């Protein structure tokens, strides 16, 4: 039985390898060069960095759907959260015993707060002409939020309240609004006029940064709170 299974798995892997290899070898190359097309399209994209141009101009539909997927994931994670969290009922800062509550972490978080905020803003701005952009800036914001929560704070800029829900939605809602506004002017979906494209892209990325940061933090924070072991 085990031997038959081993033979079957070897045969399957060899067959898979042969199929993959033949697919790569017999692949027909497309009659156009995407890199050349992209380089020609950069001037009318509104941004100078090719990756950002692809993400928010040439393939912005994909990015829009990605944001929607992220939003759905966070909404599901928040829905699965403990329905009676301690942090929303009490307005004052709740410091749980089991949270890592050391002076080092607390002061480090306070030192890192302005530095990481500045890094996020820089990454967002740099995305227009060099590596960076909304996802990276949002990840830095989320990391800051994780530090903030781990050091025991439940209030302040990363508290779970109505505003954080608005911020969660703002990215997708803003993107969708910008995408559909073009329809009003008789243009295709997401087809911004090149003269405004730069401004629109930076505006969308700014809102997206906040939303992505809150979303990633939401995925972290919707795990059961430390000290709550009812699993």
């Amino acid at each position, binding site marked *: 039985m085990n031997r038959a299974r081993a033979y079957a798995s070897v045969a399957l892997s060899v067959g898979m390898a042969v199929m993959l290899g033949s697919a790569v070898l017999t692949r027909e190359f497309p009659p156009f060069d995407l890199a050349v097309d992209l380089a020609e399209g950069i001037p009318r994209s509104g941004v100078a960095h090719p990756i950002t141009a692809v993400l928010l101009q040439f393939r912005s539909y994909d990015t829009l759907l990605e944001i929607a997927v992220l939003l759905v994931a966070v909404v599901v994670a928040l829905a699965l959260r403990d329905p009676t969290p301690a942090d929303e009922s009490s307005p004052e800062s709740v410091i749980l015993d*089991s949270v890592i509550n050391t002076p080092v972490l607390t002061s480090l978080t306070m030192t890192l707060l302005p530095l990481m905020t500045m890094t996020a803003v820089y990454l967002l701005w740099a995305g227009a002409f060099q*590596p960076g*952009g909304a996802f990276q800036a949002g*990840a830095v914001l989320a990391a800051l939020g*994780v530090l903030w929560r781990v050091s025991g704070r439940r209030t302040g800029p990363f508290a779970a309240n109505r505003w954080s829900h608005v911020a969660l939605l703002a990215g997708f809602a803003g993107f969708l609004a910008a995408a559909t506004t073009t329809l009003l002017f008789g243009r295709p979906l997401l087809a911004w006029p090149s003269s405004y494209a730069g401004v629109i892209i930076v505006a969308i990325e700014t809102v997206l940064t906040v939303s992505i940061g809150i979303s990633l933090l939401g*995925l972290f924070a919707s*795990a059961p709170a430390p000290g709550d*072991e009812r*699993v």
Partner: protein
Amino acid sequence: MLTMLFDALLGLGLVVAALGALWSRDLFRAVVLFIVFGLLVALAWIRLQAPDVALAEAAIGAGLTGALLLDAIGHLRRTPHPEES
């Protein structure tokens, strides 16, 4: 020559970190090796001239996922195992 050596070491480190993360019996060690693996992957993306992917990998792959996994270990340690205790 030096870059070849660096790339070879990076590739070797990737495989070692991945195997260590998969086969480690200690969960904490496995998670730390996973974070190391994520950071090495970020370096590999930089060597492949994809700094955008490297930034995302370092922040999300190594940073946030690592934090989530460490959090999960904390919960596992505080929860008594029914089959062990």
